[in-house]
């Protein structure tokens, strides 16, 4: 069953950026990643799903119901964590969370305490006095407090320290085990790789690819940078799987995709001064997707 069905969704703002003809589905129980650089249209898509903005074309359904028409109905089972959290100042954390919980017809006070304990958040503090990371924790709790069936996260990890990110991911995984579907938007590839079953890649308002993480990993490029001691012929690394080969005197760089052993053997045969093997950043992966299209 599909929890989210997006069909030809389009949102234009006059002439400026927006999203164009986006289609993908998120199945029940999966953790779905939504990645793309800043300004690619991730937030626009998510805000359309939440009916914060209205589409100019196409449609989106959550739980089989139209996002615009049944927004309040859908919202009962959706938890949303925006990338930046803002709350009414002059309120205590507990009061805000209680207010948030009052919209759902459930008793949530036990769950508020439980989540606050896990995230190590002081409920008696005033919201204005909280640091960015602690405000984010308030956001996490208010997004999860009503045990939603669908959790929508828009670049959720900013402001959280690595330990807290781990706790947060554990929380999400736990919710996921209990049956919640997660839509996770991010521009950080590693966290998406760690969390998600499938991803949609968006660039400049269009979906470039929807893929299983496992397949994406197989296709994953590694970025090689070498410093060699003596000149080598330009054609030395010219083999299948090597892309973007650049040679500047003793510095060589390229992207490699394929059996890592092969390339390591090749490198072992020459006299090297230094070697870096890195995960390519998202931009480079996108470049790769564009190259394939041309």
């Amino acid at each position, binding site marked *: 069953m599909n929890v989210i069905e997006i069909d030809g969704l389009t949102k234009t703002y006059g002439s400026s950026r927006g999203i164009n003809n986006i289609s993908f589905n998120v199945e029940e129980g999966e953790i779905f990643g939504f990645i793309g650089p800043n300004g690619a249209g991730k*937030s626009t898509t998510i*805000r359309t799903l939440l009916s*914060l903005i209205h589409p100019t074309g196409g449609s989106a359904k959550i739980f089989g119901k139209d996002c615009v028409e049944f927004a309040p109905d859908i*919202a009962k089972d959706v938890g949303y964590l925006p990338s930046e959290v*803002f*709350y*009414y*100042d002059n309120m205590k954390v507990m009061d805000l969370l209680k207010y*948030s919980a009052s919209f759902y017809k459930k008793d949530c006070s036990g769950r508020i305490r439980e989540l606050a304990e896990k995230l190590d958040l002081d409920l008696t503090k005033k919201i204005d006095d909280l640091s960015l990371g602690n405000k984010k924790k308030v956001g996490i709790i208010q997004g999860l407090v009503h045990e939603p069936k669908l959790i929508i996260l828009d670049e959720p990890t900013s402001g959280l320290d690595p330990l807290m990110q781990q706790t947060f991911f554990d929380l999400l995984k736990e919710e996921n085990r209990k049956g919640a579907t997660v839509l996770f938007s991010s521009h950080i590839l590693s966290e998406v790789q760690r969390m998600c079953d499938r991803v949609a890649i968006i660039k400049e308002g269009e979906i470039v690819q929807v893929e299983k993480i496992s397949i994406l990993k197989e296709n994953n490029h590694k970025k090689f940078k070498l410093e060699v001691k003596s000149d080598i012929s330009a054609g030395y690394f010219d083999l299948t799987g090597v892309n973007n080969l650049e040679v500047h005197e003793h510095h060589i760089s390229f992207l490699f995709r394929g059996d890592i052993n092969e390339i390591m053997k090749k490198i072992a045969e020459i006299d090297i001064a230094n070697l870096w093997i890195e995960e390519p950043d998202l931009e480079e992966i996108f470049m790769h997707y564009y190259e394939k299209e041309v």
Partner: protein
Amino acid sequence: MNMYLFELRAYRKNTLMWTLALTGLALLFMSMFPPIAKEIDEFKKALEGFPEGVRKALGLQVETIGSVNGYYSYTFMYIALCGAIQAMTLGISISSKEVREKTADFLLTKPVTRTNVLASKLLAALTCILFTNIVYLGAAVLIAKAVASGEFSLTAFLLISLSLLIISLIMFALGTMLAVLFPKIKSVISVSLGVVFGFFVLGMVAGLEESGRYFSPFKYVDYAYVMKKETYEWPFLVVGFIIIVLAFIVSFIVYKKKDIHTV
């Protein structure tokens, strides 16, 4: 209901302050009445020294200023001004709050319709305005009775005082519409003061002509007329009512449709 109570709590202090301010203003003005009434002839002579245009613009009626209602209606102009500022500020503030404080992502993703959100906010604000008006009215009557000597028409006094509510409601509705149409209002108080003073000055200038009175809600109730006839002028009330209804209709339609962008 939870949103209504939440907003009510948020504006509790603000409403109490305005109520105290309005009541205090009435107390201050009316406490000056007995000494003025004692030397009313001198006072009238001094007022007659003003050119007629100035007297009209200021709402000064030399014949009636010696009576409680006459004096009250003159000072009431400024009380109405304050009430209008309260209502306009409340209208702008309550419906642009989500955008100003960037809490739209919080409130508008909850399982409630936007119509419900706006309605709760407006009801809370109306409760605040009603509270101010009721307390003010009660206090004003007590004060007037204390300073009144001789004949005093309670009906006229009540009608004058109730025009505070009429002006407040119109200003509140206009403020709400402004906030919904231009949600990026950063400084609520400056916009509110600007608009209210605009109407106030317009009332002074355009209000000199009978037809010009329609342009400023401050002139919808003519105090001289109220004192003479002990009733309101219906055409103005109807226009006021239409303004309120239209402003609310526009507000609800726009609020329901508008896009909430990231901050």
